[in-house]
């Protein structure tokens, strides 16, 4: 803790003493930001994270209408009938599952981002490991004991939990609805979040925090429990008051997700300055019978997606009525997608990349990226390769929603990642020059199909550029380019593929705002 105090103080010294004008403007332009200033100016932004436990079948959530034939033959027993797919204004190639009518409406109102094929280089197929990777923001082979949101909050509130709450920071930094504690909000020393299931019922706990503890593990755990006890007592009044302050809410459907989001809306409207809310919804591990055989647009998965869509729709409707929609965005994620090919049990097994959603008045709106390519012949182990690194989504939220400086972002994300223009430019008063829906002309391979080698031509706008080769399981198997360019323009490299077995591969480029995937065939 001492180290961080030092860092914080040294930053404060370097910070310009006069901060004038539009504070958001100041934030996005100053090279050094005092964490306290950051916290103060940015205090009203909220992110709601919806975790979909179990691995959502992305390919039956966001559907590639332009490849319906391949899609259908890959999963005949669960394929959604083409005419039932919900269409998206301005994006004819892509549609939503028929159960997602509320999210279709949000999309057509410009309040929903569909981010295609989100994943990471070496997909992990274990629920638990994959969940940890998503929550921590780590690489597959890296074990982080902190969560990405925990690091963000820690960078803003480095002394937490000492002397919290205080006059300025009166409220929990993050709230998890429910009885569990999430790795997402784990900071370097303590979890930055607080779990509550009912904001109206709190119980006074003994305050014994001042007593010393023995130098044993019992002492270590005792200080942990006392900290939770103290936190609970101190924040309870604020949370209850916030909850009580809201007497009217829009109608929500009756699902556990809707109930959780209803609490979130109430707490935000009630005046909590909490920045991050975590909710979750389970049941997505659909190995068997995910759709009704006689009507594949219905069944288990349809019910799950319908519940998400209705809950988010109701939440948006409510926060609009509460006049807090300017301050709130939400994001969904699941630990992985599922296989392209369905299994004989009418379900899908653990897979790799999948789409995720951002929603809210201040998201940019639109489909980001391209539909994944569905091979014409699919084998059981084929996966959707990742187009967008999930950390580019986190990075974009930090930069364009919480207005975190690039240098701070690096500390939080631990590595440099590109960003996507997922949020309205006005949110952090940044300029976004890059066209977001540029058709991919960034990477070309020829010959394709190839037998020995193929020449890869790619366009970079300068800066860090990554070109990877992925196999059909969605795993990165070769790094072709990992370089930083000082100029914009065309470049090329050669893929030596004599060691590859014949089959489907993917080349992926990541540079600036751009992340694209192209299919390449080894003969």
């Amino acid at each position, binding site marked *: 803790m001492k180290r961080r105090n030092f860092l914080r103080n040294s930053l404060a010294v370097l910070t310009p003493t006069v901060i004038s004008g539009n504070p958001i403007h100041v934030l996005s332009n100053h090279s050094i930001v005092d964490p306290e200033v950051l916290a103060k100016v940015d205090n009203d932004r909220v992110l709601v994270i919806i975790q979909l436990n179990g691995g959502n079948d992305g390919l039956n959530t966001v559907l590639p209408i332009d490849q319906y034939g391949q899609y259908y033959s890959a999963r005949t027993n669960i394929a959604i009938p083409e005419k039932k797919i919900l269409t998206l204004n301005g994006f004819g190639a892509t549609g939503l599952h028929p159960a997602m009518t509320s999210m279709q409406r949000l999309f057509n109102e410009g309040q929903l981002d569909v981010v295609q094929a989100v994943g990471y280089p070496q997909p992990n*197929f274990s*629920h638990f490991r994959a969940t940890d990777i998503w929550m921590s923001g780590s690489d597959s082979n890296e074990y982080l004991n902190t969560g990405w949101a925990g690091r963000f909050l820690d960078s803003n509130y480095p002394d937490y939990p000492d002397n919290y709450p205080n006059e300025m920071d009166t409220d929990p930094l993050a709230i998890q609805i429910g009885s569990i504690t999430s790795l997402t909000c784990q900071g370097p020393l303590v979890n930055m979040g607080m779990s509550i299931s009912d904001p109206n019922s709190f119980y006074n706990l003994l305050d014994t925090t001042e007593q010393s503890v023995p130098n044993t*593990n019992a002492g270590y755990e005792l200080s942990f*429990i006392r900290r939770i006890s103290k936190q609970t007592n101190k924040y309870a009044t604020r949370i209850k008051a916030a909850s009580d302050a809201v007497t009217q809410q829009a109608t929500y459907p009756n699902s556990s997700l809707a109930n959780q989001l209803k609490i979130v809306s109430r707490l935000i409207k009630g005046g909590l300055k909490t920045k991050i809310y975590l909710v979750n919804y*389970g049941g997505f591990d659909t190995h068997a019978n995910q759709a009704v055989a006689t009507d594949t647009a219905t069944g288990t998965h349809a019910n799950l997606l319908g519940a998400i869509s209705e809950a988010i729709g109701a939440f948006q409707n409510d926060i609009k009525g509460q006049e807090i929609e300017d301050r709130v965005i939400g994001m969904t994620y699941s630990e992985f997608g599922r296989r392209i090919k369905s299994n004989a049990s009418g379900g899908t097994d653990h897979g790799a990349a999948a789409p995720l959603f951002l929603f809210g008045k201040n998201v940019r709106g639109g489909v980001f990226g391209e539909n994944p390519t569905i091979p014409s012949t699919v084998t*059981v*182990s084929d996966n959707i390769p990742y187009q967008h690194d999930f950390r580019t989504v986190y990075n974009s939220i930090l930069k364009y929603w919480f207005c975190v400086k690039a240098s701070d972002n690096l500390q939080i994300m631990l590595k440099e990642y590109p960003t996507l223009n997922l949020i309205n430019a006005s949110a952090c008063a940044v300029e976004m020059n890059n066209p977001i829906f540029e058709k991919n002309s960034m990477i070309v391979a020829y010959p394709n199909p190839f037998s020995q080698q193929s020449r890869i031509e790619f366009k970079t706008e300068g800066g860090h550029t990554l070109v990877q080769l992925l196999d059909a399981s969605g795993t990165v198997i070769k790094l072709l380019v990992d370089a930083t360019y000082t100029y914009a323009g065309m470049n090329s490299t050669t893929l030596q593929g004599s060691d590859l077995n014949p089959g489907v591969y993917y080349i992926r480029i990541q540079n600036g705002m751009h992340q694209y995937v192209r299919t390449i065939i080894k003969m």
Partner: protein
Amino acid sequence: MPLSPLSSSLGLEPFQGTWTKQTTTHLLNRLLFGAKQSEIQYFLAKGLNASIDELLNPSAVIPAPPLNDYNTATVIDPAVPLGATWINHPTGDGTINSLRRTNFKKWLTGVLIHQDISIREKLTLFWANHFGTEADTISNANYVYHHHATLRTHSIGNFKTMVKAITIDPGMLRYLNGYLNTASAPDENYGRELQELFTVGKDNAVQYSESDVKAAARVLTGWRINASYMSYFDATRHDTGNKQFSSYYNNKVIAGKSGQAGATETDELIDMLFEKTDMAKYICRRLYRWFVYYYIDETVEKNIITPLAEIFKSTNFDIKPVLTALFKSAHFYDSVYIGCQIKSPIDHVIGTLRKTNVVFPNSISDYADAYLHFNNMTGQLTNLGQNLADPPNVAGWPAYYQSPEYHELWINADTLPKRNKFTDLMLETGYTRNGRKVSIQAIPFAQAISSNPADPNQLVKDLFELLISTEVDQSIKDNLKKQILLSGQTSDYYWTDAWNSYQSNQNTINFNLVNTRLKALIKYIMNLPDYQLS
């Protein structure tokens, strides 16, 4: 205050210290759901070795099966009358199965409350967490019961035998889709979890591959469940091709077999997994985290996990020798581990009921009322985050695997107040169902556990020794005695007089005088953060 978890450098060498009330309580708190005073006295007198031999050799008959308490005028289990057991009458009826699952959970709660005085129930729960299955997903209550019975049967037997039994256990075949796993459509679910969660684990060093998951799934093709709800091997669904494993398994090939011989591939697969030292270490780490503490650094890995794994392998995977070595070790009794476990909801609820000698209606002769109360306690467990027989997923409860917090995950701003609320209610009003009340009877409890309840110093001391595992400052105990038992006065005889008056004349006034103070004192102790530790 320690800034991070600590480890002891002591190893498996036998504990040579004095066998005290504290060491006895420590052992019993970890092996049972909370140690009762009578049990502490019994095992204190026995000494270390005899205690462990007794606790690790369960002699009690297995618990009597669950009894139908769910028939009503409108919903009737056609095969099972009220008061009879359903465990030999499997059914496909969804409504009946739902009622039976609820009934199973009530029964299991009763089993925990009335556990035999051995490691069996805590170890059965350990395995239920290890082979995490969800009753709601399995759906068929008979599978749920028999899965659980299998775990209990093998709980302190041979791990390899248990893995073989669980692999073809109908509940598990159902839970991880093994029954749908066929040559034409392999289902990887069990093949994956068998490796990742049940045997070799997925720690850094464990480098089996996705192809191993697929190969294992192919080996396991063909297991099904028949119309009598039993598992069997259907050779026509079995993949008879050879199964190639990766270098992690020394490029082992399990040769495909046709006919009933295909079933023996499953044994070969399990034999292959058990060849890995990673497997023995992984299981020993899980046992360590369950019975000692979650923090395993290089010292513990070297001094405890590695030698335990050696014992495990050298006995062909018998569980008892491993636990015997651990519970007799100097490491286990190092003061650094006394009272360091955050109680699970089961430890908290069941432990409180046991320690305070709460009396329930008889679970056989008075099963209807008993099950009503068990049901209430099952609900308490769920409310605190531990839905019996329905862990969140196949990995079990995150408190036993989720780094870095582990056991700390049980406690947060939501569950801590709920824990206090539970003990408060048990003391204040108790729970009444069908006119039968279950509560902590403060005066009989004090009488049973204190050598001299008339002496407020002795009473406070005895209560702390039983209920609190950490060292609490004498000043706090003195203050509690003064503020609560002596109503702010300084002379001990105020309490002594009150207690003795009640003993000689048990009228309402005398009763209230003693009872209110005693309840306030116990409530305070149970509200201490220290009470969450065991």
